[in-house]
Protein backbone atom coordinates (compact mmCIF):
# COMPACT_ATOMS: atom_id res chain seq x y z
CA UNK A 1 0.00 0.00 0.00
CA UNK A 2 3.07 2.25 0.00
CA UNK A 3 2.24 3.33 -3.52
CA UNK A 4 -1.02 4.92 -2.45
CA UNK A 5 0.66 6.92 0.22
CA UNK A 6 3.01 8.51 -2.27
CA UNK A 7 0.18 9.42 -4.68
CA UNK A 8 -2.06 10.76 -1.97
CA UNK A 9 -5.19 10.08 -4.00
CA UNK A 10 -4.51 12.92 -6.42
CA UNK A 11 -6.85 12.98 -9.39
CA UNK A 12 -4.44 14.78 -11.71
CA UNK A 13 -3.50 12.82 -14.79
CA UNK A 14 -5.15 9.61 -13.63
CA UNK A 15 -7.78 7.69 -15.56
CA UNK A 16 -9.39 6.29 -12.40
CA UNK A 17 -9.11 7.44 -8.81
CA UNK A 18 -10.82 5.57 -5.96
CA UNK A 19 -10.47 7.31 -2.61
CA UNK A 20 -11.45 5.48 0.56
CA UNK A 21 -14.49 3.86 -0.97
CA UNK A 22 -16.88 2.34 1.53
CA UNK A 23 -20.16 0.63 0.74
CA UNK A 24 -22.59 -0.68 3.31
CA UNK A 25 -25.78 -2.39 2.18
CA UNK A 26 -28.83 -2.35 4.41
CA UNK A 27 -30.89 -5.50 4.34
CA UNK A 28 -34.43 -5.58 5.66
CA UNK A 29 -35.99 -8.90 6.66
CA UNK A 30 -39.42 -9.90 7.91
CA UNK A 31 -42.91 -8.94 6.82
CA UNK A 32 -44.40 -7.77 10.11
CA UNK A 33 -41.36 -7.15 12.27
CA UNK A 34 -38.98 -5.36 9.96
CA UNK A 35 -35.43 -6.19 11.03
CA UNK A 36 -32.58 -4.32 9.50
CA UNK A 37 -29.08 -5.61 9.20
CA UNK A 38 -25.98 -4.29 7.47
CA UNK A 39 -23.55 -5.92 5.11
CA UNK A 40 -20.22 -4.19 4.63
CA UNK A 41 -19.17 -4.79 1.03
CA UNK A 42 -16.29 -2.27 0.95
CA UNK A 43 -14.46 -0.94 3.98
CA UNK A 44 -11.75 1.25 2.55
CA UNK A 45 -10.72 0.83 -1.05
CA UNK A 46 -8.28 3.26 -2.62
CA UNK A 47 -6.23 3.02 -5.79
CA UNK A 48 -5.37 4.93 -8.93
CA UNK A 49 -5.13 3.79 -12.52
CA UNK A 50 -2.97 5.51 -15.13
CA UNK A 51 -4.09 6.22 -18.67
CA UNK A 52 -3.29 3.27 -20.96
CA UNK A 53 -2.74 0.93 -18.00
CA UNK A 54 -4.22 -2.54 -17.59
CA UNK A 55 -5.00 -2.66 -13.89
CA UNK A 56 -6.09 -5.84 -12.14
CA UNK A 57 -8.43 -6.20 -9.20
CA UNK A 58 -8.26 -9.66 -7.65
CA UNK A 59 -9.75 -11.23 -4.58
CA UNK A 60 -11.91 -14.09 -3.38
CA UNK A 61 -15.68 -14.20 -3.89
CA UNK A 62 -17.41 -11.48 -1.89
CA UNK A 63 -14.20 -9.49 -1.47
CA UNK A 64 -15.70 -6.38 -3.07
CA UNK A 65 -14.38 -6.48 -6.66
CA UNK A 66 -17.74 -6.18 -8.38
CA UNK A 67 -18.97 -3.57 -5.88
CA UNK A 68 -15.88 -1.48 -6.69
CA UNK A 69 -16.51 -1.81 -10.43
CA UNK A 70 -20.16 -0.87 -9.96
CA UNK A 71 -19.21 2.29 -8.09
CA UNK A 72 -16.68 3.26 -10.74
CA UNK A 73 -19.17 2.63 -13.53
CA UNK A 74 -21.82 4.81 -11.76
CA UNK A 75 -24.10 1.85 -11.03
CA UNK A 76 -23.72 2.24 -7.28
CA UNK A 77 -23.32 5.22 -4.98
CA UNK A 78 -20.69 4.65 -2.26
CA UNK A 79 -21.70 5.09 1.38
CA UNK A 80 -18.58 7.20 1.81
CA UNK A 81 -15.46 7.99 -0.16
CA UNK A 82 -15.16 9.33 -3.66
CA UNK A 83 -14.33 8.04 -7.11
CA UNK A 84 -13.43 9.87 -10.28
CA UNK A 85 -13.27 8.38 -13.74
CA UNK A 86 -11.53 10.44 -16.43
CA UNK A 87 -11.69 13.30 -13.95
CA UNK A 88 -15.48 13.10 -13.57
CA UNK A 89 -17.17 12.45 -10.25
CA UNK A 90 -18.88 9.03 -10.30
CA UNK A 91 -21.82 10.27 -8.23
CA UNK A 92 -22.52 13.60 -9.87
CA UNK A 93 -21.25 13.42 -13.46
CA UNK A 94 -22.87 10.15 -14.33
CA UNK A 95 -23.67 10.76 -18.00
CA UNK A 96 -20.22 12.12 -18.80
CA UNK A 97 -18.64 8.97 -17.41
CA UNK A 98 -21.14 6.61 -19.06
CA UNK A 99 -20.48 8.14 -22.47
CA UNK A 100 -16.76 7.40 -22.26
CA UNK A 101 -16.56 3.97 -20.66
CA UNK A 102 -17.33 0.44 -21.76
CA UNK A 103 -18.46 -2.34 -19.44
CA UNK A 104 -18.11 -6.05 -20.08
CA UNK A 105 -19.74 -8.04 -17.33
CA UNK A 106 -19.26 -11.38 -19.06
CA UNK A 107 -21.13 -14.62 -18.61
CA UNK A 108 -23.82 -16.06 -20.83
CA UNK A 109 -26.40 -13.46 -19.85
CA UNK A 110 -26.35 -9.77 -20.67
CA UNK A 111 -27.19 -10.17 -24.35
CA UNK A 112 -30.48 -10.19 -26.25
CA UNK A 113 -30.38 -13.81 -27.35
CA UNK A 114 -33.47 -13.78 -29.58
CA UNK A 115 -31.94 -11.29 -31.98
CA UNK A 116 -28.68 -11.16 -33.94
CA UNK A 117 -25.26 -9.80 -32.99
CA UNK A 118 -25.82 -6.89 -35.37
CA UNK A 119 -29.15 -6.06 -33.72
CA UNK A 120 -27.53 -6.19 -30.28
CA UNK A 121 -24.70 -3.91 -31.34
CA UNK A 122 -26.93 -1.46 -33.22
CA UNK A 123 -29.22 -1.15 -30.20
CA UNK A 124 -26.37 -0.36 -27.84
CA UNK A 125 -24.80 1.96 -30.41
CA UNK A 126 -28.01 4.01 -30.28
CA UNK A 127 -28.07 3.90 -26.49
CA UNK A 128 -24.51 5.30 -26.49
CA UNK A 129 -25.35 7.94 -29.08
CA UNK A 130 -22.98 6.60 -31.75
CA UNK A 131 -23.90 8.50 -34.94
CA UNK A 132 -25.62 6.38 -37.57
CA UNK A 133 -22.93 7.14 -40.16
CA UNK A 134 -20.29 5.70 -37.79
CA UNK A 135 -22.33 2.71 -36.61
CA UNK A 136 -22.18 0.54 -39.75
CA UNK A 137 -18.40 0.81 -40.07
CA UNK A 138 -17.77 0.25 -36.37
CA UNK A 139 -20.11 -2.73 -36.09
CA UNK A 140 -18.44 -4.32 -39.12
CA UNK A 141 -14.96 -3.71 -37.71
CA UNK A 142 -15.86 -5.03 -34.26
CA UNK A 143 -17.45 -8.18 -35.64
CA UNK A 144 -14.34 -8.78 -37.75
CA UNK A 145 -12.04 -8.11 -34.79
CA UNK A 146 -14.00 -10.58 -32.67
CA UNK A 147 -14.24 -13.16 -35.47
CA UNK A 148 -18.03 -13.05 -35.56
CA UNK A 149 -18.60 -11.75 -39.09
CA UNK A 150 -19.86 -15.11 -40.38
CA UNK A 151 -22.60 -15.31 -37.74
CA UNK A 152 -23.35 -11.58 -37.61
CA UNK A 153 -27.00 -12.05 -38.59
CA UNK A 154 -27.69 -15.28 -36.65
CA UNK A 155 -29.62 -15.22 -33.41
CA UNK A 156 -27.31 -14.98 -30.39
CA UNK A 157 -29.05 -18.00 -28.81
CA UNK A 158 -27.28 -20.15 -31.41
CA UNK A 159 -23.83 -18.90 -30.32
CA UNK A 160 -21.31 -20.87 -28.30
CA UNK A 161 -20.16 -19.56 -24.92
CA UNK A 162 -16.96 -18.21 -26.47
CA UNK A 163 -18.85 -16.41 -29.21
CA UNK A 164 -21.14 -14.81 -26.64
CA UNK A 165 -18.11 -13.65 -24.67
CA UNK A 166 -16.63 -12.09 -27.81
CA UNK A 167 -19.95 -10.38 -28.50
CA UNK A 168 -19.87 -9.03 -24.93
CA UNK A 169 -16.47 -7.54 -25.69
CA UNK A 170 -17.71 -6.08 -28.96
CA UNK A 171 -20.68 -4.52 -27.15
CA UNK A 172 -18.34 -3.03 -24.56
CA UNK A 173 -16.37 -1.38 -27.36
CA UNK A 174 -19.31 -0.06 -29.37
CA UNK A 175 -18.82 3.52 -28.15
CA UNK A 176 -15.03 3.39 -28.64
CA UNK A 177 -14.56 3.87 -24.87
CA UNK A 178 -11.50 5.39 -23.27
CA UNK A 179 -11.75 3.04 -20.30
CA UNK A 180 -13.01 -0.53 -20.38
CA UNK A 181 -14.17 -2.34 -17.24
CA UNK A 182 -13.87 -6.10 -17.63
CA UNK A 183 -15.51 -8.13 -14.86
CA UNK A 184 -14.12 -11.67 -15.00
CA UNK A 185 -14.09 -11.83 -18.79
CA UNK A 186 -12.70 -15.38 -19.05
CA UNK A 187 -14.69 -17.09 -16.32
CA UNK A 188 -16.22 -20.33 -17.54
CA UNK A 189 -14.49 -20.24 -20.92
CA UNK A 190 -12.63 -23.15 -22.53
CA UNK A 191 -8.85 -22.72 -22.19
CA UNK A 192 -8.50 -22.09 -25.92
CA UNK A 193 -11.16 -19.34 -25.92
CA UNK A 194 -9.76 -17.86 -22.71
CA UNK A 195 -6.34 -17.54 -24.39
CA UNK A 196 -8.01 -15.91 -27.38
CA UNK A 197 -9.88 -13.48 -25.09
CA UNK A 198 -6.66 -12.57 -23.26
CA UNK A 199 -4.97 -11.90 -26.55
CA UNK A 200 -7.86 -9.56 -27.50
CA UNK A 201 -7.51 -7.75 -24.17
CA UNK A 202 -3.78 -7.28 -24.84
CA UNK A 203 -4.67 -5.94 -28.28
CA UNK A 204 -6.94 -3.34 -26.68
CA UNK A 205 -4.15 -2.11 -24.41
CA UNK A 206 -1.87 -1.84 -27.43
CA UNK A 207 -4.53 0.39 -28.97
CA UNK A 208 -4.15 2.72 -25.98
CA UNK A 209 -7.23 1.75 -23.99
CA UNK A 210 -7.21 1.88 -20.20
CA UNK A 211 -8.55 -1.36 -18.73
CA UNK A 212 -9.67 -2.30 -15.26
CA UNK A 213 -9.93 -6.07 -15.04
CA UNK A 214 -11.28 -8.25 -12.27
CA UNK A 215 -10.32 -11.91 -12.33
CA UNK A 216 -10.15 -15.03 -10.24
CA UNK A 217 -7.21 -16.33 -12.23
CA UNK A 218 -3.88 -15.15 -10.86
CA UNK A 219 -1.88 -16.28 -13.87
CA UNK A 220 -4.22 -14.13 -15.98
CA UNK A 221 -3.52 -11.09 -13.81
CA UNK A 222 0.21 -11.96 -13.97
CA UNK A 223 0.24 -12.18 -17.75
CA UNK A 224 -1.98 -9.19 -18.48
CA UNK A 225 -1.79 -6.58 -15.73
CA UNK A 226 0.78 -3.88 -15.21
CA UNK A 227 -0.34 -3.55 -11.57
CA UNK A 228 -2.63 -5.59 -9.40
CA UNK A 229 -4.64 -4.69 -6.30
CA UNK A 230 -5.63 -7.55 -4.02
CA UNK A 231 -8.92 -7.02 -2.21
CA UNK A 232 -9.94 -8.99 0.85
CA UNK A 233 -13.07 -8.38 2.93
CA UNK A 234 -13.59 -4.95 1.36
CA UNK A 235 -10.03 -3.73 1.90
CA UNK A 236 -7.09 -3.38 -0.46
CA UNK A 237 -4.45 -5.56 1.22
CA UNK A 238 -1.75 -5.10 -1.43
CA UNK A 239 -1.17 -3.08 -4.57
CA UNK A 240 1.88 -3.53 -6.74
CA UNK A 241 3.19 -4.92 -10.01
CA UNK A 242 2.89 -8.72 -10.34
CA UNK A 243 6.65 -9.04 -9.77
CA UNK A 244 6.41 -6.69 -6.78
CA UNK A 245 3.67 -8.81 -5.26
CA UNK A 246 5.73 -11.97 -5.77
CA UNK A 247 8.37 -10.43 -3.49
CA UNK A 248 5.94 -11.04 -0.61
CA UNK A 249 6.65 -14.72 -1.01
CA UNK A 250 10.26 -14.57 -2.26
CA UNK A 251 11.57 -16.04 0.96
CA UNK A 252 9.17 -18.94 0.61
CA UNK A 253 8.84 -21.80 -1.80
CA UNK A 254 5.94 -23.89 -2.94
CA UNK A 255 5.84 -27.64 -2.54
CA UNK A 256 3.49 -29.06 -5.14
CA UNK A 257 2.20 -32.54 -4.45
CA UNK A 258 0.35 -34.65 -7.00
CA UNK A 259 -1.39 -37.69 -5.66
CA UNK A 260 -4.55 -39.69 -5.13
CA UNK A 261 -6.64 -40.50 -2.06
CA UNK A 262 -5.84 -37.23 -0.29
CA UNK A 263 -8.67 -36.23 2.05
CA UNK A 264 -9.81 -32.98 3.65
CA UNK A 265 -8.57 -34.41 6.97
CA UNK A 266 -5.01 -34.44 5.67
CA UNK A 267 -5.38 -30.93 4.25
CA UNK A 268 -6.53 -29.78 7.70
CA UNK A 269 -3.45 -31.34 9.24
CA UNK A 270 -1.29 -29.29 6.89
CA UNK A 271 -3.18 -26.14 7.79
CA UNK A 272 -2.44 -26.76 11.45
CA UNK A 273 1.32 -27.11 10.87
CA UNK A 274 3.18 -23.99 11.97
CA UNK A 275 5.64 -23.84 9.04
CA UNK A 276 2.92 -23.70 6.42
CA UNK A 277 1.96 -20.21 5.27
CA UNK A 278 -0.86 -21.25 2.99
CA UNK A 279 -2.20 -24.28 1.22
CA UNK A 280 -4.45 -24.72 -1.77
CA UNK A 281 -5.96 -28.09 -2.51
CA UNK A 282 -7.69 -29.40 -5.60
CA UNK A 283 -9.16 -32.69 -4.48
CA UNK A 284 -11.88 -32.99 -7.07
CA UNK A 285 -10.07 -34.85 -9.87
CA UNK A 286 -8.40 -38.23 -10.04
CA UNK A 287 -5.06 -36.49 -9.95
CA UNK A 288 -5.23 -34.36 -6.81
CA UNK A 289 -2.94 -31.38 -6.38
CA UNK A 290 -1.77 -29.70 -3.17
CA UNK A 291 0.21 -26.46 -3.25
CA UNK A 292 1.91 -25.87 0.08
CA UNK A 293 3.65 -22.55 0.68
CA UNK A 294 6.40 -22.77 3.26
CA UNK A 295 9.63 -21.05 4.22
CA UNK A 296 11.24 -24.45 4.84
CA UNK A 297 11.56 -25.50 1.18
CA UNK A 298 12.72 -29.08 0.63
CA UNK A 299 13.12 -29.61 4.37
CA UNK A 300 9.38 -30.05 4.69
CA UNK A 301 9.15 -32.93 2.23
CA UNK A 302 9.60 -35.62 4.86
CA UNK A 303 6.78 -34.09 6.95
CA UNK A 304 4.55 -33.97 3.87
CA UNK A 305 5.22 -37.64 3.18
CA UNK A 306 4.40 -38.47 6.79
CA UNK A 307 1.03 -36.71 6.67
CA UNK A 308 0.20 -38.35 3.34
CA UNK A 309 1.39 -41.82 4.27
CA UNK A 310 -2.07 -43.30 3.61
CA UNK A 311 -2.40 -41.64 0.20
CA UNK A 312 -0.72 -42.31 -3.12
CA UNK A 313 1.87 -39.68 -4.00
CA UNK A 314 2.69 -39.46 -7.71
CA UNK A 315 5.11 -36.55 -7.58
CA UNK A 316 6.51 -33.84 -5.29
CA UNK A 317 8.09 -30.69 -6.74
CA UNK A 318 9.62 -27.57 -5.25
CA UNK A 319 8.52 -24.56 -7.33
CA UNK A 320 9.29 -20.88 -7.53
CA UNK A 321 6.47 -18.81 -6.04
CA UNK A 322 3.91 -17.39 -8.43
CA UNK A 323 1.46 -14.51 -8.17
CA UNK A 324 -1.09 -17.07 -7.00
CA UNK A 325 1.17 -17.95 -4.07
CA UNK A 326 1.53 -14.28 -3.21
CA UNK A 327 -2.23 -13.91 -3.45
CA UNK A 328 -2.84 -16.90 -1.21
CA UNK A 329 -0.44 -15.54 1.37
CA UNK A 330 -1.95 -12.06 1.31
CA UNK A 331 -5.51 -13.29 1.39
CA UNK A 332 -4.79 -15.82 4.12
CA UNK A 333 -2.97 -13.43 6.47
Amino acid at each position, binding site marked *: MSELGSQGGSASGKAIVAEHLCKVFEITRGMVRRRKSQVVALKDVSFEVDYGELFGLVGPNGAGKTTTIKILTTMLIPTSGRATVLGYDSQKEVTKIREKIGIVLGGERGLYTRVSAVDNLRYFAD*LYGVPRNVQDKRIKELLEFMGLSDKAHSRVETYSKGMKQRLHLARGLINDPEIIFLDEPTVGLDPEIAIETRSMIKGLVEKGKTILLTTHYMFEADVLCKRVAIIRNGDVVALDTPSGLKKYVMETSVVEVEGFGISEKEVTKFREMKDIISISADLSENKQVLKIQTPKGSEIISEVQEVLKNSHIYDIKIKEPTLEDAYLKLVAT
Partner: protein
Amino acid sequence: MPNTLRVIYSAFRLAMLHWMADPQWVIPNVIAPFVFTTVALTLFKGSGGPFGLYAVLGGGMMGMWGNTIYSSGFAIEFEKWQGTLEEVIAAPSKLIHVITGRSISNALFGLTNMVAVLIVGTFVFNISLGISEPILFTISLLLTLLSVSALGLIFASAFVLSRSAQTLTNGLETPLYIISGSMFPIALLPFWSHPIAYILGPTWGIDAIRLTTSQEYASQTFWVGMGTNSALILDLTVMMLITAAYVAIANVLFKMVETRARTKGTLVEA
Protein backbone atom coordinates in the same frame (compact mmCIF):
# COMPACT_ATOMS: atom_id res chain seq x y z
CA MET B 1 -25.72 12.66 -25.17
CA PRO B 2 -27.75 10.15 -27.18
CA ASN B 3 -30.63 11.44 -29.27
CA THR B 4 -33.89 10.85 -27.37
CA LEU B 5 -36.00 9.93 -30.41
CA ARG B 6 -33.24 7.61 -31.67
CA VAL B 7 -33.17 5.79 -28.33
CA ILE B 8 -36.97 5.49 -28.21
CA TYR B 9 -37.02 4.18 -31.78
CA SER B 10 -34.19 1.72 -31.12
CA ALA B 11 -35.90 0.35 -28.00
CA PHE B 12 -39.17 0.15 -29.95
CA ARG B 13 -37.44 -1.72 -32.79
CA LEU B 14 -35.74 -4.19 -30.46
CA ALA B 15 -39.03 -4.88 -28.67
CA MET B 16 -40.76 -5.48 -32.01
CA LEU B 17 -37.99 -7.90 -33.02
CA HIS B 18 -38.56 -9.78 -29.76
CA TRP B 19 -42.32 -9.88 -30.33
CA MET B 20 -41.72 -11.31 -33.81
CA ALA B 21 -39.23 -13.85 -32.48
CA ASP B 22 -41.72 -15.18 -29.97
CA PRO B 23 -45.10 -16.14 -31.48
CA GLN B 24 -46.54 -16.83 -28.03
CA TRP B 25 -47.97 -13.31 -28.10
CA VAL B 26 -50.83 -14.75 -30.15
CA ILE B 27 -52.33 -16.30 -26.98
CA PRO B 28 -52.75 -13.14 -24.83
CA ASN B 29 -53.21 -10.79 -27.77
CA VAL B 30 -55.61 -12.66 -30.03
CA ILE B 31 -57.05 -15.78 -28.47
CA ALA B 32 -57.76 -14.40 -24.97
CA PRO B 33 -59.67 -11.26 -26.12
CA PHE B 34 -61.44 -13.41 -28.74
CA VAL B 35 -62.79 -15.69 -25.99
CA PHE B 36 -63.55 -12.79 -23.65
CA THR B 37 -65.54 -10.88 -26.25
CA THR B 38 -67.47 -13.96 -27.26
CA VAL B 39 -68.53 -14.44 -23.63
CA ALA B 40 -69.35 -10.74 -23.15
CA LEU B 41 -71.42 -10.50 -26.33
CA THR B 42 -73.32 -13.66 -25.47
CA LEU B 43 -74.18 -12.13 -22.09
CA PHE B 44 -75.20 -8.75 -23.56
CA LYS B 45 -77.12 -10.29 -26.48
CA GLY B 46 -80.63 -8.89 -26.61
CA SER B 47 -80.04 -6.28 -23.92
CA GLY B 48 -80.58 -3.49 -26.46
CA GLY B 49 -78.95 -0.04 -26.54
CA PRO B 50 -75.27 0.41 -27.24
CA PHE B 51 -74.25 -2.57 -25.10
CA GLY B 52 -72.87 -4.41 -28.10
CA LEU B 53 -70.69 -1.40 -28.69
CA TYR B 54 -69.58 -1.44 -25.06
CA ALA B 55 -68.77 -5.13 -25.31
CA VAL B 56 -66.80 -4.88 -28.55
CA LEU B 57 -64.87 -1.71 -27.76
CA GLY B 58 -64.60 -2.66 -24.10
CA GLY B 59 -63.20 -6.08 -24.92
CA GLY B 60 -60.70 -4.54 -27.31
CA MET B 61 -59.75 -1.86 -24.82
CA MET B 62 -59.35 -4.43 -22.10
CA GLY B 63 -56.90 -6.35 -24.24
CA MET B 64 -54.90 -3.23 -25.11
CA TRP B 65 -55.04 -1.94 -21.59
CA GLY B 66 -53.94 -5.20 -20.01
CA ASN B 67 -51.27 -5.82 -22.60
CA THR B 68 -49.75 -2.38 -22.26
CA ILE B 69 -49.88 -2.11 -18.49
CA TYR B 70 -48.59 -5.62 -18.00
CA SER B 71 -45.92 -5.46 -20.70
CA SER B 72 -44.67 -2.00 -19.74
CA GLY B 73 -44.08 -3.15 -16.22
CA PHE B 74 -42.66 -6.35 -17.58
CA ALA B 75 -40.16 -4.39 -19.71
CA ILE B 76 -37.84 -3.97 -16.72
CA GLU B 77 -38.38 -7.55 -15.61
CA PHE B 78 -37.49 -8.69 -19.13
CA GLU B 79 -34.19 -6.81 -18.94
CA LYS B 80 -33.48 -8.45 -15.58
CA TRP B 81 -34.18 -11.90 -16.99
CA GLN B 82 -31.93 -11.27 -19.96
CA GLY B 83 -29.26 -9.89 -17.63
CA THR B 84 -29.16 -6.73 -19.73
CA LEU B 85 -30.55 -4.23 -17.21
CA GLU B 86 -27.09 -3.30 -15.94
CA GLU B 87 -25.81 -2.74 -19.47
CA VAL B 88 -28.85 -0.63 -20.36
CA ILE B 89 -28.60 1.47 -17.20
CA ALA B 90 -24.83 1.83 -17.61
CA ALA B 91 -25.41 3.44 -21.02
CA PRO B 92 -25.67 7.25 -21.13
CA SER B 93 -29.24 7.23 -22.47
CA LYS B 94 -32.07 7.65 -19.99
CA LEU B 95 -33.80 4.48 -18.87
CA ILE B 96 -37.20 6.15 -19.25
CA HIS B 97 -36.55 6.65 -22.98
CA VAL B 98 -35.70 2.97 -23.39
CA ILE B 99 -38.86 1.94 -21.55
CA THR B 100 -40.93 4.44 -23.55
CA GLY B 101 -39.83 2.71 -26.76
CA ARG B 102 -40.77 -0.65 -25.31
CA SER B 103 -44.12 0.67 -24.02
CA ILE B 104 -45.08 2.06 -27.42
CA SER B 105 -44.20 -1.26 -29.01
CA ASN B 106 -46.36 -3.05 -26.46
CA ALA B 107 -49.22 -0.64 -27.07
CA LEU B 108 -48.95 -1.19 -30.81
CA PHE B 109 -49.09 -4.92 -30.27
CA GLY B 110 -52.06 -4.28 -28.03
CA LEU B 111 -53.86 -3.15 -31.18
CA THR B 112 -54.00 -6.77 -32.28
CA ASN B 113 -56.41 -7.26 -29.36
CA MET B 114 -58.73 -4.65 -30.78
CA VAL B 115 -58.52 -6.14 -34.26
CA ALA B 116 -59.30 -9.62 -32.91
CA VAL B 117 -62.30 -8.32 -31.01
CA LEU B 118 -63.60 -6.31 -33.97
CA ILE B 119 -63.43 -9.42 -36.14
CA VAL B 120 -65.45 -11.43 -33.61
CA GLY B 121 -67.99 -8.65 -33.16
CA THR B 122 -68.44 -8.03 -36.87
CA PHE B 123 -68.37 -11.53 -38.32
CA VAL B 124 -69.67 -13.72 -35.49
CA PHE B 125 -72.21 -11.42 -33.80
CA ASN B 126 -73.03 -9.10 -36.70
CA ILE B 127 -72.41 -6.00 -34.62
CA SER B 128 -71.60 -3.08 -36.81
CA LEU B 129 -69.54 -0.43 -35.10
CA GLY B 130 -70.56 1.98 -37.80
CA ILE B 131 -67.47 4.11 -37.41
CA SER B 132 -68.77 7.49 -38.47
CA GLU B 133 -65.40 9.25 -38.35
CA PRO B 134 -62.70 6.76 -39.38
CA ILE B 135 -59.85 9.32 -39.18
CA LEU B 136 -60.94 10.68 -35.81
CA PHE B 137 -61.49 7.11 -34.62
CA THR B 138 -57.90 6.22 -35.58
CA ILE B 139 -56.51 9.38 -33.98
CA SER B 140 -58.50 8.78 -30.80
CA LEU B 141 -57.36 5.17 -30.67
CA LEU B 142 -53.68 6.01 -31.16
CA LEU B 143 -53.76 8.83 -28.59
CA THR B 144 -55.46 6.49 -26.13
CA LEU B 145 -52.68 3.99 -26.74
CA LEU B 146 -50.12 6.69 -25.98
CA SER B 147 -51.97 7.54 -22.78
CA VAL B 148 -52.04 3.89 -21.70
CA SER B 149 -48.31 3.64 -22.55
CA ALA B 150 -47.57 6.67 -20.39
CA LEU B 151 -49.46 5.10 -17.49
CA GLY B 152 -47.43 1.94 -18.13
CA LEU B 153 -44.26 3.99 -17.63
CA ILE B 154 -45.33 4.83 -14.09
CA PHE B 155 -45.78 1.14 -13.33
CA ALA B 156 -42.47 0.31 -15.03
CA SER B 157 -40.56 2.59 -12.66
CA ALA B 158 -41.61 0.39 -9.73
CA PHE B 159 -39.96 -2.59 -11.39
CA VAL B 160 -36.55 -0.93 -11.24
CA LEU B 161 -36.68 -1.42 -7.50
CA SER B 162 -38.30 -4.78 -7.00
CA ARG B 163 -39.81 -7.78 -8.72
CA SER B 164 -42.73 -7.62 -6.29
CA ALA B 165 -43.96 -4.75 -8.48
CA GLN B 166 -45.49 -7.55 -10.58
CA THR B 167 -48.13 -7.93 -7.87
CA LEU B 168 -48.93 -4.23 -8.21
CA THR B 169 -49.64 -4.41 -11.94
CA ASN B 170 -51.50 -7.70 -11.67
CA GLY B 171 -53.66 -6.29 -8.88
CA LEU B 172 -54.41 -2.96 -10.56
CA GLU B 173 -55.08 -4.17 -14.08
CA THR B 174 -58.72 -5.16 -13.65
CA PRO B 175 -59.81 -2.35 -11.24
CA LEU B 176 -58.33 0.30 -13.52
CA TYR B 177 -59.98 -1.27 -16.51
CA ILE B 178 -63.39 -1.25 -14.83
CA ILE B 179 -63.07 2.23 -13.30
CA SER B 180 -62.05 3.78 -16.63
CA GLY B 181 -65.41 2.72 -18.05
CA SER B 182 -64.06 0.44 -20.73
CA MET B 183 -66.89 -2.03 -20.45
CA PHE B 184 -69.59 -0.29 -18.38
CA PRO B 185 -70.62 3.37 -18.40
CA ILE B 186 -69.00 5.20 -15.49
CA ALA B 187 -72.48 6.33 -14.39
CA LEU B 188 -73.20 2.73 -13.35
CA LEU B 189 -70.19 2.67 -11.03
CA PRO B 190 -70.18 3.93 -7.42
CA PHE B 191 -69.73 7.67 -7.05
CA TRP B 192 -66.45 7.32 -5.12
CA SER B 193 -64.85 5.75 -8.19
CA HIS B 194 -65.61 8.74 -10.44
CA PRO B 195 -62.67 10.95 -9.32
CA ILE B 196 -60.32 8.03 -9.95
CA ALA B 197 -61.87 7.55 -13.39
CA TYR B 198 -61.34 11.22 -14.24
CA ILE B 199 -57.59 11.08 -13.57
CA LEU B 200 -57.19 8.07 -15.83
CA GLY B 201 -56.31 9.19 -19.37
CA PRO B 202 -57.94 6.17 -21.04
CA THR B 203 -61.32 7.12 -19.48
CA TRP B 204 -61.38 10.16 -21.77
CA GLY B 205 -59.90 8.20 -24.66
CA ILE B 206 -62.62 5.59 -24.52
CA ASP B 207 -65.24 8.34 -24.45
CA ALA B 208 -63.64 9.85 -27.57
CA ILE B 209 -63.48 6.51 -29.35
CA ARG B 210 -67.15 5.81 -28.66
CA LEU B 211 -68.09 9.26 -29.95
CA THR B 212 -66.44 8.44 -33.29
CA THR B 213 -68.32 5.17 -33.61
CA SER B 214 -71.87 5.78 -32.48
CA GLN B 215 -74.21 8.74 -32.78
CA GLU B 216 -76.36 7.02 -30.15
CA TYR B 217 -73.52 7.46 -27.66
CA ALA B 218 -73.63 11.28 -27.84
CA SER B 219 -76.25 11.24 -25.07
CA GLN B 220 -73.92 9.34 -22.73
CA THR B 221 -70.67 11.25 -23.19
CA PHE B 222 -69.15 13.33 -20.39
CA TRP B 223 -69.89 16.43 -22.44
CA VAL B 224 -73.64 16.04 -23.08
CA GLY B 225 -75.08 18.96 -24.98
CA MET B 226 -71.78 20.20 -26.36
CA GLY B 227 -72.01 18.62 -29.78
CA THR B 228 -70.06 15.58 -30.90
CA ASN B 229 -67.03 17.41 -32.32
CA SER B 230 -66.60 19.71 -29.33
CA ALA B 231 -66.99 16.78 -26.95
CA LEU B 232 -64.40 14.84 -28.93
CA ILE B 233 -61.89 17.71 -28.84
CA LEU B 234 -62.43 18.18 -25.10
CA ASP B 235 -61.98 14.43 -24.48
CA LEU B 236 -58.73 14.32 -26.42
CA THR B 237 -57.41 17.55 -24.85
CA VAL B 238 -58.10 16.36 -21.31
CA MET B 239 -56.54 12.99 -22.11
CA MET B 240 -53.37 14.53 -23.55
CA LEU B 241 -53.01 16.83 -20.54
CA ILE B 242 -53.33 13.82 -18.26
CA THR B 243 -50.87 11.91 -20.45
CA ALA B 244 -48.38 14.78 -20.20
CA ALA B 245 -48.80 14.65 -16.43
CA TYR B 246 -48.15 10.87 -16.49
CA VAL B 247 -44.93 11.43 -18.46
CA ALA B 248 -43.81 14.14 -16.03
CA ILE B 249 -44.60 11.91 -13.03
CA ALA B 250 -42.85 8.93 -14.65
CA ASN B 251 -39.80 11.10 -15.33
CA VAL B 252 -39.57 12.11 -11.67
CA LEU B 253 -40.23 8.53 -10.52
CA PHE B 254 -37.53 7.10 -12.79
CA LYS B 255 -35.01 9.59 -11.43
CA MET B 256 -36.02 8.75 -7.86
CA VAL B 257 -35.96 5.00 -8.28
CA GLU B 258 -32.66 5.07 -10.14
CA THR B 259 -31.02 7.06 -7.34
CA ARG B 260 -32.57 4.74 -4.78
CA ALA B 261 -31.47 1.66 -6.72
CA ARG B 262 -27.92 3.06 -7.03
CA THR B 263 -27.87 3.62 -3.30
CA LYS B 264 -29.40 0.32 -2.23
CA GLY B 265 -27.85 -1.80 -4.98
CA THR B 266 -31.19 -3.17 -6.17
CA LEU B 267 -30.71 -2.53 -9.90
CA VAL B 268 -30.35 -6.16 -10.82
CA GLU B 269 -32.31 -7.77 -8.02
CA ALA B 270 -34.19 -10.49 -9.87
